[in-house]
């Protein structure tokens, strides 16, 4: 073992995801020798969300004068195209790495006990002056000890392997992944229930977003179970039986209520994600982890061990809570502006959705420190505002900006 040749690089990257690839490519551009270690393929995209958006638009077609636009959805067809697209992306990423002369090493990496930080993959050793850990995260799971039958469910990884649209879906979780999965499945034709532990979804987002999203979910036909947890899961002839317990925290006298959902063909756990650090053998490396297993880093991505860095989901995010502004600046210094409206797209549709927007400003000059919104088109609206906010835009800057008409984004520069 001691005699085994160790391949040396300037930069060794463990994990070929967004962070890892970006790091490796940039290093190579700057003249460094680099290698990327990846144990799987490069991951999925939001192609499924586009498919479900079409579902909503198809409902609106008749209102806009289209006759005959009733449709059935073929899951197999979209899965094939999505998988093909993802494969193409994998190939493009691979080509990009090859063009940049970055070595790709297939396999699982583990740190060895060598004095100089060294990584072993399938019996071969690699080292570098700089090692970047970018192994990302994976969906959290519930053990069968905690919830009997939990392993009968899938996670978001399993969602992308589904061969057909589930008839009856039950999603557990209140974060954005749970909300997105529930929305997609429901629009594509699955009768969907969403189980959440507390009273609303997206609790880590601004309260306006949380309450609006919870309401819109219910309006769209998703069966929302608040203050509910899964107690057990059973396999029956007609599908899964999910046993639930509901307890309203406001009502101390009422007992916990037990219910069940039967005939379920898809139980999806979307209860959180955890960092992929367990298999790395980081224990004796001097790389500190937090209580959840995230790698602790400073603002330069340094870990607690010199020469080892970490980036991306494996580090954990500093979640921006909506009350942070008040905590930092004091309640009297914080001013919020909100608006809600029905986008003009819905002027002639029977189906309606709401758009909500909020600006969080601080200080006398009303510097904008937070912008939150939900509604049609918000994904494309936000980028330009993010740039401006980073530049230190104030409410006055917003007000002086001329609107583009007719759009939804103009509402952000015409708030009173």
């Amino acid at each position, binding site marked *: 073992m001691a005699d085994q040749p160790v391949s040396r690089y300037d930069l060794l990257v463990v994990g070929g995801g967004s962070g890892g690839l970006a790091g490796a490519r940039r290093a190579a551009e700057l003249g460094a020798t680099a290698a990327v270690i990846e144990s799987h393929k490069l991951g999925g995209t939001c192609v499924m969300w*586009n498919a479900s958006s079409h*579902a909503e638009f198809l409902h609106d077609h008749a209102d806009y*004068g289209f006759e*005959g636009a009733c449709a059935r959805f073929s899951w197999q067809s979209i899965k094939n195209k999505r998988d093909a697209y993802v494969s193409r992306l994998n190939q493009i990423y691979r080509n990009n790495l090859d063009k940049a002369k970055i070595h790709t090493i297939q396999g699982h990496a583990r740190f060895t006990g060598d004095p100089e930080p060294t990584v072993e993959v399938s019996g071969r050793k690699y080292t570098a002056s700089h090692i970047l850990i970018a192994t990302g995260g994976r969906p959290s799971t519930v053990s069968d000890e905690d919830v009997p039958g939990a392993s009968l469910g899938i996670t978001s990884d399993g969602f992308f392997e589904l061969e057909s649209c589930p008839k009856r879906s039950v999603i557990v979780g209140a974060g954005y992944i749970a909300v997105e999965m529930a929305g997609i499945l429901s629009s594509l034709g699955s009768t969907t229930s969403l189980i959440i532990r507390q009273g609303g979804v997206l609790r880590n987002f601004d309260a306006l977003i949380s309450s609006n999203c919870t309401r819109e979910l219910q309006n769209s036909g998703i069966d929302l179970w608040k203050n509910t947890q899964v107690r057990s899961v059973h396999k029956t002839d007609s599908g899964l039986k999910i046993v639930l317990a509901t307890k309203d925290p406001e009502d101390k006298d009422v007992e916990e209520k037990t219910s069940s959902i039967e005939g379920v063909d898809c139980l999806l756990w979307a209860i959180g994600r955890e960092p992929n650090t367990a298999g790395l053998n980081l224990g004796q490396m001097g790389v500190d982890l937090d209580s959840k297993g995230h790698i602790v880093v400073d603002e330069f991505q340094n870990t607690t061990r010199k020469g080892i860095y970490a980036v991306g989901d494996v580090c954990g995010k500093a979640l921006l809570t909506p009350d942070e502004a008040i905590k930092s600046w004091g309640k009297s210094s914080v001013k919020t502006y909100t608006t809600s409206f029905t986008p003009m797209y819905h002027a002639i549709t029977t189906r309606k959705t709401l758009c909500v927007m909020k600006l969080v400003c601080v200080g006398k000059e009303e510097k904008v420190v937070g912008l939150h919104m939900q509604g049609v088109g918000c994904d494309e609206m936000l980028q330009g505002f993010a*740039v401006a906010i980073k530049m230190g835009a104030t409410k006055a800057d917003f007000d002086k900006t001329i609107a583009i008409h007719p759009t939804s*984004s103009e509402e952000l520069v015409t708030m009173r």
Partner: protein
Amino acid sequence: MAALYSRSRLKLLLRSALHLSNRTLTGSGGKFDYDLLVIGGGSGGLACSKEAAQLGQKVAVLDYVEPSVRGTKWGLGGTCVNVGCIPKKLMHQAALLGSAVKDAQKYGWQIPQPVSHDWATLAESVQNYVKSLNWGHRVQLQDRKVKYMNMKGSLVDDHTVRCLSSRGKEMTVTARNILIATGGRPKYPTHVPGALEFGISSDDLFWLKETPGKTLVVGASYVGLECAGFLTGIGLEATVMVRSIALRGFDQQMSRLVTDYMQGYGTRFCWDCVPKKVEKLPSGLLQVTWTDSRTGQDHQDTFNSVLWAVGRAPETGTLNLQQVGVELDGDTRKVMVADDERTSVPNIYAIGDIAQGRPELTPTAIHAGKLLARRLAGLSSQLMDYSNVPTTVFTPLEYGCVGLSEEEAERRYGKDKIEVYHAFYKPLEFTVAERDSSQCYIKVVCERDGDQKVVGLHFTGLNAGEVTQGFALSLRCGLSYAQLRDSVGIHPTCAEELTKIYITKRSGLDATVTGC
């Protein structure tokens, strides 16, 4: 706005200014019927009147729609609400849904063919929505205690307006300040035989009860292109006749991308052609003869409708402006205004499409109207800033922009002093849908030196309006290329591509985005 007034005008101004200060001392109520009288209930007029009323002024609005050549009329709200932005965007949306149906099939939706479009359903829904907006505006005026009169206004003197109703009822009102916001109307090429008798304009298109059918759109302004675009999108045969260039005044590279996309989309183009005459055939179809200015040859074809989109003219004809001393521009016939929207008569103002040198856009009229109201109430001295006004052309492939075109930047700074960053990107939505993204493009024009301040930003793609708004704000805050590149992208969106551009035109390198 230099040398606006002649010597005699200056004397008149001075005299009027003294006169004005005397009048303000006496206050409103006793002296005049209103503090502010607004002629024109469109984007600018309504915004100014509502703001002024809210600030305690006594305000009245006169709105009157002269029927179009074809007899089309509409209610309160002006061009934007009735025959512009609103119905245009809804019809554009209908066209987008038409494309979405085709895309949906690639996304796994099995739709029994064929899907057809019914004009009457769309038109009725749009017209009903516009009427609800007319009503909404009336209610708003009432709530703000603005007096609304559906009457045609003309000036008697600098404080007096004659009002005439459609039934011939006449009255006179006086006001301390008068705002002219009567906007514009589509021009007809009256030198083309048959143009008036057989053609329609954007005033008529949105109010048609029956489908316009196979349509010839004459004119390649944004009005012409947007109309041809949505007509194509809902399944009609549409042709655009272009005299020389499309989207005059806009960045011409971007203009070409817009029209290239439209050609791939199915809109036909007759480049370098001018109409010669329009005749009606016994079948009811319109026969159009035109000349190809490259060859000098004449051509003919038949259409169900001919839509004139050859420019707009200001509504100043019946206002009696010149007799009262309000000067008009010699070429455009629009009202001459100073930086504070004042005309050559000190208590008469003009905003919106009627004012010389102003963008013909709703948001600038609204903004100018509100600022004017605040100045008139004595609460502010802030003037309207007309620079870096963002806009979006809602053609099938939308085009959003703010700041200078590349040509204008070259003219102002010199080619050596600017750096143009650009990228051809592919929206994720186009991938599975197998759509051609060759015209999806981003261009950021910057100063070459120092921070590389951004002077112009251009984007073609989906949701261009929604993408551009925030960047317009950033430009106003002094955006530099470095700040743009330092921004973290929102993924996966089209907007994030703006934070990733790094290839310059100068380098000559391939500007196609290749993934992260």
